[in-house]
């Protein structure tokens, strides 16, 4: 696993993020620019959008002022556009492992050799038509085939290939229900669920043949009921009762997450499913969306509004998840050292082996943590998005938001908050 890169561009986007975390207006300008990049027709257009966003920033730091001065002339805009495009591309490469699964194979193998498994995630535009849903399902199928063909040639990494319950697939793909159907509607979850199920069945069947793991991602609360119902219904079908290995996600920022976990664990216990369902515990990535949507409609936000409440709930759910072993396999996905350390300690306290706990991070945000955990022989998996710039933009903006949030662990860590404070109980 590579250590901290000395690449000059990395220093540059680190600098951009530092500036962005210090100034909300600048942060907004940066996001709006990254968001519009793939829709810009040429460098001039790109530079015009960039300067228009920067004009709305009240106090502009010197490097930004310099950029604005360049935009006065056409050659200046071309240069600024080129520099900005390179900047966004570089940022995208930090978070996105390749344009296609095939293009990502080299990086994936490299990670594997250095002790980290991956879960591949296919980025895409929103699915609004059946053709787009079909295309996404085809890309998932292609990803499974591509990974399954390459994986046997990877070297042995015993820490990543088995826990005390049995073997773990080398191939691991995360899929999004909202991309598998254009029919997901919050007030009619069954329609989207059935339509997505139609495309999910061949994927499950192929994953079973290939011995691959399929992980169903969780998105916003609007699709929550459809997603959980889909997983439970499909895995109860006779064809899928004994495989493939599958997983779901629990979002600790949801107030209702303890009940959801209860439901999933009860189901796993009752069905005795083998291989056991993997439950990935995350904080949740749609916090702003959930809060704004709820407040606009006059609803109680479905998420904890205090970060410390989410963190506490994360630890509570970690313990419940560990208690549910061996009916489910726990996977703790966090960049918060306190959350990770808590999971490791709780797992050991329960008398389990380290290999019975999976730790997950995001590509581009948790690389250093993954490297450190791998060095200590922990089972670590990196969530690796794949896709082109257009497809990846929504994802990229979410990751940037996370990385520049004043509340995020990573932000605190970068700002040099003392380790005792970072590790304090929430």
């Amino acid at each position, binding site marked *: 696993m590579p250590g901290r890169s000395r690449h000059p561009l990395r220093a540059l986007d680190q600098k951009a993020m530092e500036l962005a975390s210090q100034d909300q207006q600048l942060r907004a300008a940066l996001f709006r620019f990254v968001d519009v990049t793939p829709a810009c027709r040429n460098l001039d257009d790109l530079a*015009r*959008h960039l300067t228009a966003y920067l004009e709305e920033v009240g106090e502009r730091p010197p490097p930004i002022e310099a950029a604005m001065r360049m935009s006065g002339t056409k050659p200046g805009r071309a240069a600024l556009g080129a520099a900005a495009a390179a900047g966004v591309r570089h940022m995208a490469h930090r978070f996105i492992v390749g344009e296609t699964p095939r293009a990502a194979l080299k990086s994936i193998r490299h990670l594997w050799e250095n002790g980290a498994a991956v879960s591949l995630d296919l980025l895409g535009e929103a699915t*609004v*038509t059946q053709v787009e849903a079909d295309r996404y399902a085809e890309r998932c199928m292609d990803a499974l085939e591509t990974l399954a063909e390459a994986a046997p040639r990877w070297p042995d990494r015993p820490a990543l290939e088995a826990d005390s319950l049995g073997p773990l697939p080398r191939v691991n793909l995360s899929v999004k229900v909202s991309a598998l159907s254009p029919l997901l*509607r919050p*007030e*009619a979850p069954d*329609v989207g669920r059935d339509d997505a199920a139609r495309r999910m069945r061949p994927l499950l069947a192929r994953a079973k043949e290939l011995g691959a793991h399929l992980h169903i991602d969780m998105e916003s609360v609007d699709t929550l*009921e459809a997603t959980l119902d889909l997983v439970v219904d499909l895995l109860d079908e006779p064809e899928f009762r004994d495989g493939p290995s599958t997983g779901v996600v629990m979002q600790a920022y949801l107030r209702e997450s303890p009940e959801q976990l209860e439901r999933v664990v009860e189901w796993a216990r009752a069905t005795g499913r083998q291989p056991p369902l993997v439950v990935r515990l995350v904080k949740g990535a749609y916090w702003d969306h959930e809060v704004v949507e709820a407040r606009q409609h006059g609803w109680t936000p479905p998420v904890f509004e205090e970060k410390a409440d989410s963190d506490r709930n994360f630890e509570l759910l970690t313990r419940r998840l560990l208690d549910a072993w061996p009916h489910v396999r726990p996977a703790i996905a966090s960049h918060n050292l306190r959350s990770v350390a808590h999971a490791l300690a709780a797992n050991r306290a329960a008398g389990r082996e380290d290999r019975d706990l999976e730790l997950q991070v995001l590509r581009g945000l948790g690389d250093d943590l993954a490297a450190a955990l791998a060095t200590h022989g922990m089972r670590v998996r990196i969530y690796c998005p794949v896709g082109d710039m257009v497809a990846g933009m929504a994802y990229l903006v979410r990751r940037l938001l996370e990385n520049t949030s004043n509340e995020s662990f990573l932000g605190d860590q970068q700002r040099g908050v003392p380790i005792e404070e970072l590790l304090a109980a929430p």
Partner: protein
Amino acid sequence: MSFRNEPILELRRAPLRESLLEALRSLDERLPLSVPMLVGGDSASGAGFESTDPGRPQRVVAEAARATEADAAAAVEAAQRGFREWSARPAAERAEVLRRAAARLRERRLELAALQVRECAKPWPEADADVCEAIDFLEYYALEALELDRGRDIVQAPGERNTMRYAPRGVAAVIAPWNFPLAIPCGMTAAALAAGNAAVLKPAEQSPGSAGALVDALHEAGVPADALALLPGFGEVGAALVRDPRVHVIAFTGSAPVGLEIVRASSETPDRQPHVKRVVAEMGGKNCVLVDADADLDEAVPGIVHSAFGYAGQKCSAAARVLVHEAIADTLVERLAGAVEVLRVGQASEFATEVPPVIEREAQERVLRYRDLAGDGVVAAAEPVPDEGWFAPPTLVSGLPEDSPVNREEIFGPLLSVTAVRDLDHAAEVVDSLPFALTGGLFSRSPATVERVAARLPVGNLYVNRGITGAMVGRQPFGGNRRSGIGSKAGGPDYLLQFVEPRVVTENTMRHGIPVE
């Protein structure tokens, strides 16, 4: 006290959906409802006409008494009495009555949503939103009336005291449409009453049931019988109200031809009429959504589809046209086509339904006629649609000439026309050339473009990077310009001014050369 919108139901929660279905089952057992004519203390029931379920036309939802022109005259006479009583009450007391009516609607909200599902084939989320909007109008105008009652600060000089207050006008005739069967009659009636006028409500003949529930709530809350009459009926009743010289204000929402006829008829001021009538009219639209080359199509496609096809396009705010930059026109049409094909056409009572039947046979025939006019321009439709009920397939057309009636006339149904334009200036010229100016939309990620287009377009409500329907009381005061409407925006701070007349009193405060104040 500050205004807060009534929260819509969180329909992503299964128990709430179940509670609505339960309300519908219970309503079905009571159908048909009986809607009386209410004039003064008199209540006349009787099977004058029926409203039916557009999705199952043999189901009778309400049997209503049918008011005549003579009833209209009697209602206005009663309203004159009612006006004296109602306007004499302090503004705070009137506001309290309106707020009690809001509470009454709130208690019955599930049942009232179910009634719209049946009577107007309004799908659940929109039926629920309509009930909330009705509640909002009552609460909002109650607060605004209190504000108005305080009068305005004007310039003072030594030796005189100047006050500016607002007085109600008298009798308001409210002529309402069926497409927001509770919210729109409620808004116009509540505004008239909040400002101290008496009101005579003539609801649309397609939705007497919802109007009956509204008037019940207001009477139960304490509006005197004389101050609020209900005249279920047809066009001749509305026309009689418009002509009546004892009517002071006419609040109308509906089609442009009827609205313009009201403007014409109400301007006749016979000698025995001691005032000039005031008309507040919300009329049609031919609403355009502009899509620039830098738009986020992931947001534009769902926003446009929902704006054009929600409630089968039967909203005056609905999107009728898309004007898209030629650089992305093909991509947008392809994605819109796919999104139209997956629209769920069905009964309003099913939560999955996005496109319900249109209101009546005539509407169905009108939509199909325009669709025929589009000919080869049809690029996508969600078909087939059910045989029973007034269904019209949601349809996307593209590339029609600018002078096609499909591009110029209000269709009021699930038909959306896409036109590629050279740039947004070209798009603005197209908008300018239309006689309407109600709502508009813009998808662009350039701050300069947003500013330029917002300054340029004549529309009353412009929505940027979102759908163009669903105006919220207080947040998006709503109303059009040009031939889309006259008067100020519903649910906004200027609306009540149309129901009052300003009076200024200047008092000399000097006595024998000495200021006595």
